[in-house]
C-alpha cells in the first residue's frame, strides 16, 4: 500500500514538472506585462526539437538544450509581435499556438513517417542517502533530471522575483512601465528578455514531457498542458512557488487517474479510463475558481508599452 502511494506521488511529481516549468516561465512573462498564450505551441516545438535531437545524437542533454533553444526562437517571434509591433497579445499567442501545433507534427511526419518511434528515456536517478527515507525518498528523490532542476530553479526564481533588483525591475515593468522607464529601467529589454526566458522554459517543458514522460512524439502530445500552465499563473497569483503548487495538484490528480485506469480496465470498464482523464481538467478549473477570486494581476498585463 505505501509502495503504491509512493509511486503515485512519484509519477505525480514527474508529470507536474513540465507543467511547473512552463508555468513559472509564464509567471515571469506576465509579471513584466505580457500574457503568452503560445506556451502550448512552444511546448510542442520543444518536444519535437528535443525528440529529434536525442534520436539523432543519442544525447539526452543535447535534447533538453534543443528544447530550450527552440523555445527562445519562438519567444523571439512572439516578443517581436507583442512587444515590438504591439499586436493583441492573446491573438498573437494563439497564432504561435497554431504554428507550433501544426509545425511540430508536420516536422515529425516528414522525418519519421507515420510510425511511432521511441527513444530511450532518461533513467530516474536516486539521490544517495535521501532516497532511503521511507515513502518520501522513493517519491521525491528517485526522479528524472528536470525534476531535480525544478527543486532548485523554482525557489531561486521566487527569490529573484521578490528579493533581487532584477525582480524589482520585472515587477515594476508590469505594474507601471512609465514609472519604470523614468527610473532608468529599459522597459522593452525587460519585456523581451522575460518573454524569451518564459518561452525557453516552455520549450524545456516540452522536452521534459517528451523525453521523460512519453518517450515518443505524437500529434498534440501536450493535450492542453500549455494552456493549463497559463491558468496556473492565475491560480498562483503570479507567484512561482504557488504556481508550482498548482502544477503539483494537477500532477497528483493525473497520477491518481492514470493509476486507477488499470483496475478499472480489469473491472470491465475501459471507457472509464477516459472518464478519469477528464478529472485533472475539472480539478484545475475548481482550483482556479477557489484560488483566483479577487486575484489582482500586474496592472499593465496585456497592455503593450509605448514611449509617448
Amino acid at each position: 500500500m505505501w509502495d503504491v502511494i509512493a509511486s503515485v506521488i512519484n509519477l505525480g511529481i514527474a508529470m507536474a514538472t513540465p507543467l511547473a516549468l512552463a508555468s513559472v516561465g509564464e509567471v515571469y512573462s506576465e509579471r513584466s506585462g505580457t500574457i503568452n498564450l503560445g506556451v502550448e505551441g512552444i511546448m510542442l516545438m520543444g518536444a519535437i526539437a528535443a525528440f529529434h535531437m536525442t534520436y539523432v545524437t543519442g544525447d539526452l542533454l543535447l535534447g533538453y538544450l534543443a528544447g530550450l533553444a527552440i523555445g527562445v526562437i519562438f519567444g523571439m517571434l512572439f516578443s517581436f509581435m507583442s512587444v515590438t509591433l504591439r499586436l493583441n497579445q492573446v491573438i498573437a499567442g494563439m497564432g504561435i499556438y497554431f504554428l507550433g501545433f501544426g509545425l511540430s507534427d508536420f516536422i515529425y511526419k516528414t522525418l519519421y513517417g507515420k510510425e511511432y518511434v521511441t527513444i530511450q528515456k532518461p533513467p530516474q536517478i536516486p539521490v544517495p542517502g535521501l532516497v532511503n527515507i521511507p515513502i518520501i525518498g522513493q517519491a521525491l528523490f528517485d526522479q528524472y533530471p528536470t525534476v531535480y532542476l525544478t527543486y532548485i530553479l523554482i525557489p531561486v526564481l521566487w527569490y529573484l522575483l521578490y528579493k533581487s533588483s532584477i525582480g524589482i525591475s520585472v515587477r515594476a515593468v508590469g505594474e507601471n512601465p512609465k514609472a519604470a522607464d523614468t527610473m532608468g529601467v529599459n522597459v522593452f529589454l525587460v519585456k523581451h528578455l522575460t518573454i524569451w526566458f518564459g518561452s525557453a522554459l516552455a520549450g524545456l517543458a516540452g522536452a521534459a514531457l517528451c523525453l521523460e514522460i512519453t518517450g515518443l512524439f505524437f500529434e498534440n502530445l501536450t493535450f492542453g498542458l500549455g494552456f493549463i500552465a497559463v491558468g496556473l499563473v492565475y491560480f498562483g497569483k503570479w507567484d512561482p512557488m504557488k504556481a508550482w503548487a498548482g502544477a503539483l495538484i494537477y500532477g497528483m490528480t493525473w497520477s491518481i487517474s492514470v493509476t486507477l485506469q488499470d483496475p478499472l480496465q480489469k473491472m470491465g470498464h475501459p471507457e472509464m479510463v477516459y472518464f478519469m482523464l477528464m478529472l485533472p481538467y475539472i480539478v484545475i478549473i475548481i482550483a482556479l475558481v477557489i484560488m483566483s477570486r479577487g486575484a489582482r494581476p500586474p496592472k499593465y498585463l496585456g497592455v503593450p508599452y509605448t514611449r509617448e
Partner: protein
Amino acid sequence: MAIMLKFEEREVGKAAAILIPLAALGLAFLVGAFMMLWAGVDPIAGYTAFVTGALGSPGGLTDTLLRMTPFLLMGVGIAFSNRAGVLNIGAEGQYIMGAIAATWVTLALQYVVPAPISVTTAVIMAIIVGAAWATFAGALKAFMGVNEIVTTVIMNWLALRILQWLLRGPLKSPTAQQWPMSPPLEAVYPPLIPGTRLHIGFLIAILAAIASYYLLFHTNTGFKLRVAGQNPAVATYAGYKVRTFFLLSMALSGGLAGLAGAGEVLGVFKFLYEGIAVGLGYTAIIVALVGKNHPIGVIFSAFMFGVIYNGMTYLQAATGLTYTFSKALEGMIYIFVLLAEVLILYRIRVIRVGGE
C-alpha cells in the same frame, strides 16, 4: 544610440485593406511551398489540386460553402464577443459541446418523433448547451473575477475529454470498428441543393450572420453592447449594465458555436466522432479578425477559409501530407495576416534615438 520603431496611425484605401491580407496569404502559401519541397512533394501539383478541388467544379464549390459554414457561425459569434470587449477563445469547446448535445438529442428522439421535430429540438439544445458552456466561464469572470481567457481555453480541452469519454461510453456505437463513434444519425439536416452535400445549415449560418449584423448595428442593444466593449467606463457612466452585456455576448457567441457543432454532426458527418474536433473554433478567431469583427465581413473571410479548408483536403489527397501540414500552414497564415494588420493600420518608421 538605439533604434526604435515609431508607429503612426494612418488611413488606407479600401483596395489596400483587401490587398494586404491577400498578400499575406500569398506569402504564407509561398512558405507552404518550401515546406512541401522539404517534405519531398511537388508544391505545384499540390496547389493545383488545391485550386481545382476547391473552386474548379460545382461540387467543389458547394463543398467549399459546406466547409465555410462552421467558420461563419463561430466567426460571427466571436465577432460579437469581440465587439463587447471579450475575446472568446472557447469557441472550440462550445462547438464540441453543441455537437454532443445535438447527437444525444437526435439519438433519443429520431425514432420517436417526426424528423423535423427531432432536428429542431437537437438544434435548440445544441445552442443552449453551447451558450451555457460559454456563459459558465463568463459568469465565473463576472461574479468571481476568474480570468475568462484561462477558463474558456481549459474548458476546450475538458470538452474534448468529455467527447472522448462519451464516444467510448454512453454514446458508443455497438458496431463501431475502427475508431470510436456514435450510432448513425437518421433525423438530419435536409440538403440545400439536392445532389450535393450542402445542407440547410449553410442557409441558417447566412441568416444568423445577417441577423447578427442587424442586432449589432441597428438596435439599441447592439449599440450599447458596442459601447460597453469599446469603453466600459463610458458605458458604466451612461448607466449601461456592462456585466449583462458581457454575459449576453458570451451566451450569443457560445450559442452560435453550439449551432455550428450541431451543423457538423447533423449536416456533414451524420454521426459523432473525434474527427469533428480539429480546431475549427481556433481558426474562427482569425476568421473574425480578418472579417474585421463585422458580421458581413465575416461572411467573406469565412468563405476564404472555406476555400482554404476544402482546398487543403484535395492538396492532402494529392500529396499524401496529413492535416497537420494544413494546420502549420494555417499558423503561417494567422501570423502573416496579423503582421499585415500592423502594416495596414500604421506607418512604421525606424528612428534612431541618440545616446541618453
